[in-house]
C-alpha cells in the first residue's frame, strides 16, 4: 500500500551524519533540491522511510579554485548558481550552456549539482509502476524494448534495459573530464566522470558507482575548459523544456584551423553520456571541417542500434555532431535553449 509517501523527515548539518544515516539503511534517502526525488515519490517509483535534508551542510555549496588551475564546484550549489557563476561562464562556458539547456529556470533554481548526477531516467515504463521494468524490479522485463521507445537508447544498451540518462549538465562534465568527489564510510575518494555512471549490463537497477552511504561533495574540473571553441546542441521535440532526443557537447582546441584536441560527448542516446576516444584522437592534427567531423561522427555512432521508434536518432546524432562541431568554431552562433545555429 502506498501513501504519498509515509516518510519521516530530519535535517543533518554535516557530511558525517549524512553518511551514517544513509549507510544505516536504504530507507534513509537524501534530499537536496528535491526536484527529482519528490517527483519519483509522487509516482511511487521511489519511497523512503526518512528523508534526510542535507541543505544545511556547510562548505559544499560554493566554488573553490584549485592549485592546478581547475575548480571544485560544490555538490549543494544549485544548477542556476553554477551556470551563472562568473568563473564557470568564463572558463567553462560549455558547462554553463549545457546546464541552461536543461529543465526550466525554476527547476534550475532548486536543483543541485549532486542531485543532477543522481537523477533517474525518464523512461515512461520506469515511471509507470504498473509496467514491467528491470530497473525498478530486476528480472521483471523491459517494457520499452517492444513499447514506445522514442526517447530511448541507441548505444550501450542490452536486452535488460534501453533507458537513457537524461542530464544535460553531465554531457558537458563528461566532455570536460570532470572528477566527482565522494565521501563515505570508507573515507573520501575521487571518481573519474566516465566511471561514475554505468551501462545497464546485468545490473540495470544500478545507475552509478556510488556505494551505499556515499555522498557527492563536489565536482572537480581540470584547468582546460575549451572556452574559446565550444558548443552545446540539444535536439528535442519542443524548442525548450523537454529532454534531449540527441544532444552534443563539443570542446575544441584549435591552432589556426587545425584541431589540437577534441572532446565530443553525446546525451540522449545511452545510459550514460557517450564519448568515444578513438573519434577524438582521430581529429587531432586534422582540419576542423565537416568532412573530418563526419568521419568522427561515424566512429562515435559505431555499433548504434535503434528500436522501432528511435532509429532516427542514429542519423540525427551524426548530423548533430557535425553541426555542433561547426558551431564550436564560432561559439557566438549558439542560441538560447541550445537550438541549432541559424
Amino acid at each position: 500500500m502506498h501513501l504519498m509517501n509515509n516518510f519521516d523527515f530530519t535535517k543533518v548539518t554535516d557530511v558525517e551524519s549524512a553518511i551514517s544515516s544513509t549507510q544505516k539503511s536504504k530507507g534513509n534517502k537524501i534530499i537536496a533540491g528535491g526536484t527529482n526525488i519528490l517527483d519519483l515519490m509522487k509516482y511511487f517509483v521511489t519511497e523512503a522511510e526518512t528523508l534526510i535534508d542535507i541543505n544545511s551542510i556547510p562548505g559544499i555549496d560554493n566554488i573553490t579554485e584549485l592549485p592546478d588551475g581547475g575548480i571544485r564546484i560544490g555538490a549543494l550549489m544549485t544548477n542556476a548558481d553554477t551556470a551563472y557563476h562568473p568563473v564557470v561562464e568564463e572558463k567553462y562556458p560549455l558547462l554553463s550552456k549545457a546546464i541552461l539547456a536543461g529543465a526550466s529556470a525554476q527547476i534550475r533554481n532548486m536543483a543541485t549539482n549532486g542531485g543532477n548526477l543522481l537523477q533517474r531516467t525518464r523512461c515512461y515504463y520506469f515511471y509507470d509502476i504498473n509496467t514491467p521494468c528491470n530497473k525498478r524490479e530486476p528480472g521483471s522485463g523491459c517494457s520499452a524494448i517492444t513499447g514506445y521507445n522514442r526517447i530511448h537508447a541507441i548505444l550501450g544498451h542490452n536486452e535488460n534495459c534501453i533507458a537513457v540518462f537524461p542530464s544535460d549538465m553531465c554531457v558537458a562534465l563528461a566532455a570536460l573530464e570532470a572528477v566527482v568527489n565522494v565521501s563515505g564510510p570508507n573515507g573520501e575518494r575521487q571518481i573519474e566522470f566516465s566511471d561514475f555512471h554505468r551501462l545497464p549490463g546485468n545490473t540495470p537497477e544500478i545507475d552509478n558507482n556510488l556505494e551505499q552511504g556515499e555522498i557527492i561533495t563536489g565536482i572537480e574540473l581540470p584547468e582546460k575548459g575549451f572556452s574559446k571553441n565550444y558548443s552545446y546542441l540539444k535536439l528535442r521535440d519542443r524548442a525548450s523544456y523537454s529532454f534531449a532526443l540527441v544532444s552534443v557537447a563539443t570542446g575544441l582546441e584549435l591552432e589556426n584551423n587545425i584541431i589540437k584536441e577534441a572532446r565530443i560527448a553525446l546525451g540522449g542516446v545511452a545510459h550514460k553520456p557517450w564519448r568515444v576516444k578513438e573519434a577524438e584522437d582521430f581529429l587531432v592534427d586534422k582540419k576542423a571541417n565537416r568532412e573530418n567531423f563526419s568521419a568522427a561522427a561515424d566512429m562515435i555512432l559505431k555499433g548504434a542500434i535503434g528500436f522501432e521508434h528511435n532509429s532516427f536518432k542514429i542519423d540525427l546524432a551524426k548530423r548533430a555532431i557535425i553541426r555542433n562541431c561547426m558551431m564550436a568554431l564560432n561559439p557566438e552562433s549558439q542560441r538560447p535553449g541550445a537550438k541549432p545555429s541559424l
Partner: protein
Amino acid sequence: MKIAEKKSITLTVNGESHHLEVLPWVSLLDALRERINLTGTKKGCDHGQCGACTVLIDGKRVLSCLSLAVMKENTEITTVEGIAKNGELHPIQQAFIDHDAFQCGYCTPGQICSAIGLLNENKANTREEVQDLMSGNLCRCGANRGIINAVMAVKENAPYE
C-alpha cells in the same frame, strides 16, 4: 505501519508568519493552498512540469509542488497575493492586463511570479532569451505571445526595481 509525526513549522508568506503542524510530505503548494488559504498559487500538474505552482522564495522563482513545506522555514515566500503593494499593481501585473497576457487565468499567477523572478535574475536580454527563460510556464490557452510582450514591455521600461 508507523505513520510519521507532524512537524511544527513556521512559514513566512508575504511578510506574515504562519505556524503550522504538517506531515513531512505536505508540499509547499498544498500548505499554501489548503492550510494558509492562499489559493492564488495553482496546482496544474503537481509534478513540476507546468509551472503553475511557481512562487518566489527569497526572490527566486521555484516550484512549490516540488518543495516540502517542512524544508521552507526561515525563508521569505512570496505568492501572487503578495505581489501588489499597498493596493498598487506591480508593473508586471499591469503589463499582463495591457498586453492581453491571460485568457482563463489559471497559469497566470505562476506566470507573474516567474516573470518577476526572471526580472530579478536579470539574465534575459533578447526576446528569444525571455521566451527561453519563461519556458517553464506552460499556457494551454496560448496567451504566450501576450505574456512575452508583457515581460518585454516591463524590461524595456528598465531599470526594473
